[in-house]
């Protein structure tokens, strides 16, 4: 399925040209943007933050020319290895804080949605179409099939074709597996960034109501940091 946004973009030849140009340059992030991100990371999080962004940049560069499944694996591994899985309260002092990739990398830690967002954004930057990706709320069954311990969790699903089941990029199990094999996860609801910027939503910072939604809020903050 193609989204309305994609259709309208394709109809608009200038926009389509600009989009393909960005993709040719290797992802959505150009060098100056990275320099800026790095500068922000350095000023906010010190040397550790700066080096994390540097590593992220190197990973993006390396993954640029790889096939999609390799990109998925590289990105999944990058974040699963680099970030610690810590609750938001400990990292941010808030019960549920949705961090941008820069913030997550800067702290070197995050919870499930921070992992998923960072992966989503990175894959998008590597040219994976958004309609193939879903951020999926799942109920995770912890401690084996008979355990009654469950937890609210979020993973990133990748649909190679619209009608198939996705593969799951998770931080509980680092390996990318097809959804059917993840019997510990029960999907509840999914979403992506498609359809959010249609029409008048192109300049989200202008509208204070954007802040009301966590998802939009984090997307806006990413824009401010320079990640589209």
């Amino acid at each position, binding site marked *: *399925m*193609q*989204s*309305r946004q994609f259709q309208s973009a394709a109809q608009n030849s200038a926009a389509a040209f600009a989009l393909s140009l960005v993709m040719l340059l290797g992802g959505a992030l150009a060098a100056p943007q990275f320099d800026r991100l790095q500068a922000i990371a350095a000023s906010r999080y010190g040397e550790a933050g700066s080096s994390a962004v540097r590593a992220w940049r190197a990973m993006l560069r390396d993954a640029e020319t790889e096939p999609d499944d390799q990109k998925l694996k590289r990105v999944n591994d990058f974040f699963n290895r680099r970030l610690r899985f810590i609750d938001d309260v400990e990292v941010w002092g808030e019960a549920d804080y949705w961090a941008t990739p820069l913030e997550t990398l800067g702290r070197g830690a995050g919870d499930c949605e921070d992992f998923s967002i960072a992966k989503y954004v990175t894959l998008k930057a590597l040219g994976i179409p958004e309609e193939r990706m*879903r951020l*999926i709320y799942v109920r995770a069954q912890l401690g084996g099939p008979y355990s009654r311990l469950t937890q609210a969790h979020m993973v990133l*699903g990748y*649909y190679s074709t*619209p*009608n*198939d*089941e*996705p593969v799951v990029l998770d931080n509980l199990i680092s390996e990318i597996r097809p*959804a*059917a094999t993840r019997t510990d996860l029960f*999907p*509840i*609801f*999914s*979403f*992506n960034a*498609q*359809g*959010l910027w*249609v*029409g*008048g*939503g192109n300049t989200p910072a202008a*509208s204070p*109501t954007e802040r*009301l*939604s966590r998802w939009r809020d984090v997307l806006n903050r990413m824009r401010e940091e320079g990640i589209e």
Partner: protein
Amino acid sequence: MSLIRQLWIAIAVVTLLAFSGSLVLGTLSARQYLEEQLRIKNVDNATSLALSMSQLPKDPVTVDLLLAAQFDAGHYEYIRVVGPDGKLLAARESKAVSPLAPTWFMALAPIQVSEGSAQIQDGWRQFGTLHLKSLSSFAYRNLWHGTLELLAWFAVGATLCGVLGTALLKRLLSPLDRVVDHAKAIGERRFITTPESTTTEFRTVVAAMNQLSSRVGTMLSEESARLEALRLQTQHDAVTGVLNRSHFLNIVDEALESEQAPAGGLLAMIRMPDLADLNRELGRSTVDAMLQKLASGLTDFGNSQHGWAVGRLNGSDFAVLAPDAGPGDDLPLRLSESVNLAVGEYMRNAELQIAIGLASYRRGNTLPQLLSHADMALSKAIEQGGHPVLEAVNAILHPITDLAGWREGLCAALDARRLTLHAFPVLNAKGQLLHNEAPVRLQLERNGEWLCAGEFMSWAARAGLIERIDLVVLELALAHMRKDSRPLCINLSSESMCSASSLSAFSKQLADLPDIAARLWIDLPETAAYAHIDAFRRFCAELKPLGCRIGLEHVGQRVGQIGELSEVGLDYLKIARTITRGVALNTGSQTFLRGLATIAHAMGMEVIAEGVGSADEGKLLISLGMDGVTGPGIS
């Protein structure tokens, strides 16, 4: 364009800009708000419906039911579920809703809201994408109503602004009206001063105009003082201060000829013994003092009655002209007493003999005739020694001699409208008609003799009928001017000028006839203007705006005070015959007239010479600066 109108336009423009600005901004921000709210509603409703659908069975009936429930209970333009392959799985669309706002308004301020969309999950699979859009007609209605409301406020506010602005402007500009009036007055050469305004800008202007007025006033009073000095020098005797021979004889001549002078009177001559002998006997300075005492005694005597004149005919001869006095009066006796009172001591000490001879006259007598009669009386008095002698040869013999008789006659004449206006032309320098001067004449009895103003006016004054006569004069003049398109000049009296009821009657009549009023000239006596200066100002202020012209007649005695008229804005002066007579031979008079014309012109007045005896005299007077001439030599 007047300042008030310009300020009004400015206020209107500013108010319009302010309110239309707030109208547009208000509508736009309301529209933005509504769009924002609708967008959030779309997104949130899409998400919640998608969330519900994700949890429930995905058979077509359930999906359609959920869709229908949401659609039917809510306000939606459409709700669609599209599968991942782009296939439409279920949909509900509303029929076209009748618009709740005018279509032009919707076209002008369109509400554009993007749809909300959300993903529906079927386990791990994607079931589809939900798209929905809320109805915007309610938003339009709100926006339209809000705009109408703002418009109503705009109307109320603009009206309020207008009313307040008008009041404020009136308050602010009230000093300006006075400034404008002041400037207009100066433009009309009425050199008035007004109190300075409290507004700084106006105060400066008013101060400047006041300064101008006072400077002009000073200039005028200086000039008129100079003129007065000249008049004294040319018309008065240097030693005694009474009129000199030539001017006194001019006055006598005028009394014998003028229509407005009483029909007859007395001329008294007072003769001292030969001055050469007296000088030798008493010394020149004593004699001069004696002459002065006699002159001042005679002046006191002469001033007791309006219109009387005292002159010195030569070294030892004095004369008193008493128009309106008759042979029956006790004038000779009173004159004798006055003379005795003044110089009695000298008479006793020096055995001085002063002879008094009187002669009566009537209009139409000649000057030499009258003078010879007076001489005759004087000779008889000298022969008889001491007592005054009266030659009553030409005494006027009028049928009526008492006030009651005159009152009866005058009332009858007024009731029967036995009054008429005569006309004498007044020409300008080019010989064109300025106006016809129209003195009134009256018939006491039917088919009787037409009497000149001078014959009955003093009786009318005593009978209190002058105001009535003046009203009839105005009526006659207006009736005449309806038929005759030429300008007409009437003489009004001091009494009418001072009377409030007469004034309001005049202005009432003239207000209805602006084109006739514009051709009407009104003569007032010089003496009346100075004697009742406030009434005179009121008279001018009331009648001049109606279009008529007002001037003074018989001007000559009070030129020293002419500066006092600078605030009135008079139109013309008519110079008395006593000054213009014999001007060709009198260089003093020429100088005086030239000066008078200059001052009058500076004050914006025309100068007309009365009693011009010949065409040549008229030319001379024009060359001296007169703007018009009238008299027996002018036709």
